[in-house]
């Protein structure tokens, strides 16, 4: 069988449908099969990334219909990097959730089916080259996320899922309307061809469509003030799902936003819009985070804040800034993954998952506390951990564009971030232990998962070169709009296309 990008979508989707049948053969298969599927996807990633690094973008035509008529998948250094990153994170999440709740097979079956759907959806969003197909994957992602948020079937979970559903349906509606309007203007759904024809769309129409996209995808990318659903969803969903949101779902949302602004449209103001909204998102989220009593909510707000920085960096739009932004997306997936994973074990049995009960856990759960502290040091960007490098790149890019005020803002907010993370770390290790707290022993899978992430943080921190070549290519690929169009539509007229920055 020839390895192709379509496996990313076909295999997990197929697995999701087959799993009820497999469960009848043996209960344990429901847990094992997703892992095998993701491992296979990991193998696909390795093979394809090697190809892409050597030969450039791979375009997979589905069912023999060539672009612009059929649906195609674009596996460029950028999308490939994101897809591989998501696969890797999905594997870690699978390890973590293998025996997260020792319950009977029925919830596990549901959980893993939804998880497979989520993986399909998020990777599909990243890989697809067709705007309607993009919408379909977005819906798959959204619906599986809603269900996973309400997985525990308690009151809070249901409420959070409902909020998510309410806001998410706005997103779907806006994006669908935007696609319809776009279709009336350009007469195609192929993203490369839309980009070619975008030049001829009347300005007011272009802006209206863009705004609908920005709001719709802004909801998925957790942009302020559209992110009200996020803290609830993060904190009420089962812990592995929180990680999934941070590592996969929000990344797909940001990807959508970036793809629309960088490739489809040629509106200069959108970049400034990204910077401003990113800055507002950052400030609001971090300031909200410092006052949170619940650990998971704090992590959720911090996650939103990081997405704000990612948006700012994309908004600056130079090669260096985009590089920093993609690096930060990677770091955020890894580090926030580790924080959510270790954090959920810390607050496993505490009332309302509140931080104040965590005093002295460092002695009782040394390994988990160590992981959490490592994550905290890394996420605030302290060297020599992974988070430092992305921060440095973004700040350098901002300085090169004379945005000193913006740097001061990011750094100022980082101080807030330090305060709330180090409060927790200090409490973990040096608070007076509270009596009667019950520790939750982490599963073996969980420990392995967290160790993997911790190792990545250390390795990237000490030697960023293991990852930077891929990110450099990814940044080049994202910025080179003409190359994207050319690889999908070899015969397109590129004279109207200008690489924006």
């Amino acid at each position: 069988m020839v390895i192709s990008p379509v496996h990313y979508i076909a295999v997990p989707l197929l697995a999701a449908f087959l799993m009820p049948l497999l469960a009848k053969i043996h209960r344990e298969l429901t847990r094992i099969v997703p892992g095998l599927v993701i491992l296979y996807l990991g193998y696909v990633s390795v093979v394809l990334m090697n190809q892409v690094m050597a030969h450039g973008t791979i375009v997979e035509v589905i069912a023999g219909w060539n672009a612009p008529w059929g649906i195609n998948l674009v596996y460029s250094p950028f999308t490939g990097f994101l897809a591989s990153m998501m696969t890797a994170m999905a594997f870690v999440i699978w390890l973590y959730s293998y025996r997260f709740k020792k319950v009977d097979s029925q919830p596990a079956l549901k959980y893993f089916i939804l998880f497979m759907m989520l993986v399909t959806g998020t990777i599909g969003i990243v890989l697809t080259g067709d705007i309607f197909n993009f919408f379909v994957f977005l819906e798959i992602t959204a619906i599986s996320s809603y269900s996973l948020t309400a997985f525990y079937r308690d009151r809070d979970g249901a409420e959070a899922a409902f909020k998510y559903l309410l806001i998410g349906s706005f997103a779907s509606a806006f994006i669908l309307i935007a696609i319809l309007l776009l279709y009336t203007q350009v007469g195609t759904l192929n993203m490369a061809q839309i980009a070619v024809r975008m030049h001829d769309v009347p300005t007011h129409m272009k802006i209206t469509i863009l705004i609908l996209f920005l709001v719709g995808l802004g909801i998925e990318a957790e942009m302020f003030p559209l992110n009200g659903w996020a803290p609830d969803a993060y904190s009420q969903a089962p812990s592995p799902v929180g990680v999934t949101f941070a590592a996969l779902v929000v990344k797909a949302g940001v990807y959508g936003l970036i793809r629309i602004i960088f490739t489809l449209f040629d509106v200069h103001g959108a970049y400034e819009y990204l910077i401003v909204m990113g800055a507002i998102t950052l400030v609001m989220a971090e300031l909200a985070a410092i006052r949170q009593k619940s650990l998971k909510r704090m992590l959720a707000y911090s996650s939103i804040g990081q997405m704000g920085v990612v948006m700012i960096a994309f908004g600056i739009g130079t090669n260096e800034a985009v590089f920093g932004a993609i690096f930060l997306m990677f770091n955020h997936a890894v580090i926030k993954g580790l924080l959510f994973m270790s954090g959920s074990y810390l607050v496993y049995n505490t009332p309302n998952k509140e931080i104040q009960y965590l005093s002295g856990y460092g002695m009782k759960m040394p390994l988990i506390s160590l992981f959490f502290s490592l994550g905290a040091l890394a996420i605030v960007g302290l060297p020599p951990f992974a988070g430092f490098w992305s921060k440095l790149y973004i700040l350098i890019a901002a300085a090169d564009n004379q945005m000193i005020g913006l740097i001061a803002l990011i750094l100022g907010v980082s101080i807030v971030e330090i305060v709330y993370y180090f409060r927790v770390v200090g409490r973990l290790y040096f608070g007076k232990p509270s009596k009667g707290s019950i520790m939750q022993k982490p599963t073996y899978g969980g420990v392995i998962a967290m160790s993997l992430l911790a190792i990545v943080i250390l390795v990237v921190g000490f030697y960023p070169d293991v990852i930077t070549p891929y990110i450099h290519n990814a940044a080049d690929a994202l910025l080179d709009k003409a190359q994207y169009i050319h690889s999908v539509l070899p015969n397109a007229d590129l004279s109207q296309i200008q690489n924006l920055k």
Partner: protein
Amino acid sequence: MNSLLLIILILLGGAILAYLSKRISPMLSSIVSFLAITSAALVFFFLANDQEIVKISLGDFVLEWGLNAYSWIFGAMVMVMATLASLFSIFYMKGKDRLGYFNLNFDLSVMAMMGILFSLDWVSFFIFWEIMTWSSFLIIVYNGISEGKIGIKYMIFSAIGGYAMLLALVVTRSQIHSFLITDLIHSFAGFSGNMQALLGLLFLTAFGVKSAVMPLHVWAPRAYADSPMSYTAIFSGLLSKMGIFGFGIMLIAVFSHSVDGTIFVYREVLAWLAAITSVIATFYAVIQTDAKRLLAYSSIAQLGYIVMGLAIGTKLAVMAALFLAIMHAIYKGTLFMVVGAVERQTGITDMTRLGALIRKMPWTFFAALLSIIALAGIPPLGGFVGKWMLYESLITSDHYFLIILAFLSSTAAFLYSFRFLFGIFLGQEEKEFENVKEVPFTMVLPMLIGSLLLVVFGTFPGLLFKPLASAMSFLGMGDVSWNMSMLSNGWGDHVDTLDVINSVVIIFVLVAIFLGLKNRKRTRYVSTKDIHTSGEIPTENENLTYAVDFYKPFERAIAPVMKRKMDFYYNKFGEGLETFFDFLRRVYTGNGQTYAFYVIVFLVILIVFSQQIFF
């Protein structure tokens, strides 16, 4: 292998080994840590030289490390004092919890300091700077979260400093497309006035935090006092010197390439801030009843002197500042070890309860005595030479008001110096401390070595002047004349420290001989109670000395100055901010309808203002 890299790797490996070996035996962890630092020190003194350059390419950055005359001075100081402190630490920390954790961070701090000194580019400088910050944070909170939230306060101020530096260095890079420190030094003069002012302010803030200059000092007293003493010996003695190291680069090398008015203002303002810091901190030190706090405030005061010298920036002033910096590292390191020794043997550091340990812990007392003499700046020990030069440089550079402040604080320093000695070692013997013993040899040894260094450098300051002079000429100060034992001054005459030393020694010897002859036959050991005043014989419970309200009149005199505490305003400011954040947080109401409303309003705003936003 390159010796600079080797030093960093030994310390890093030592840190990790120390952490792991705790599983075998806690004591082993401390020994591993000590051995790592010692071997790093040996490599530093016998292998490292200024020809070596390490280039490490990471990401898109090239990290460059090297050694020069200026960083060698600081490196030697760090290595010697860190070795002493880690030797001290073996027994001091014996039996305490989490030794692996402590030693890990101890070694990481030392590694970070050496890294800072080796750095030739700002990226590695910043990386090591931040490692130093978080490793010291982790040790400050080691003794538990105190009510004053000192760990967080330290972290906030360090972050302010660190991020000021980060901002400064990315701005620098956008100007000169290089992260090399030498490139900044050479191109600084070419920057626009605003850029010079901005960069100057940012770098001075960054280094000001670590050297605890007012108003960035509020973290220091508690942070120094709350850490384990074997760490404070390097925390106060060495980590703060990294701020001084940075000040040296900025104030001497970088600013000297600028003739702009703002920089001159910075110098004057900084000198004043430092002078005020030293006066206020001295006052605070006088009224402390806890020996650790006393030393902590004294550290801040001494750092004030050093910064003042660097800010004045004449040759003599810089020489004085660097000399004092080294002296301060030695005597304050020794004094914190002394307090650590006392704490370990008695369990307390409260000077109102301690007393008369001179007989129980004679060696500790001896080390304390010498260090206190050096601290107070009394000849013949090192502190005197530094102080002399500092005063002289203040006079010759026409800073008459500053010299008043400097005199004030150094005179007041006698008060706390005496109280420290008296409160702990002299006075009346207490029942409580009857069975106190001298600390083990490995704790005495580092203190004695520290005192010995003070005597040597006090007698032959020239031993230090030579490397200091080459350090200063490296920083671009030109040739600095020095002599083994001669202090020249602005009026053309000389003070020979050897004369001073000789006179003092002769007097001591004569007195000793006199006392020895006089009391030759009647030697009799007495207890404190073995006296009679006007025929009354004191009973067992009678207090003959006093330790509470030691300097009451002085406290009353300075009360108005002490009323306003910087800390108070910071706390108020912090509380205000948090209240404000809490207000902002309410944007997230938790109500789905509100969120939906936000989405609609946001869409409408975007559409209505689309012309303004997207064109």
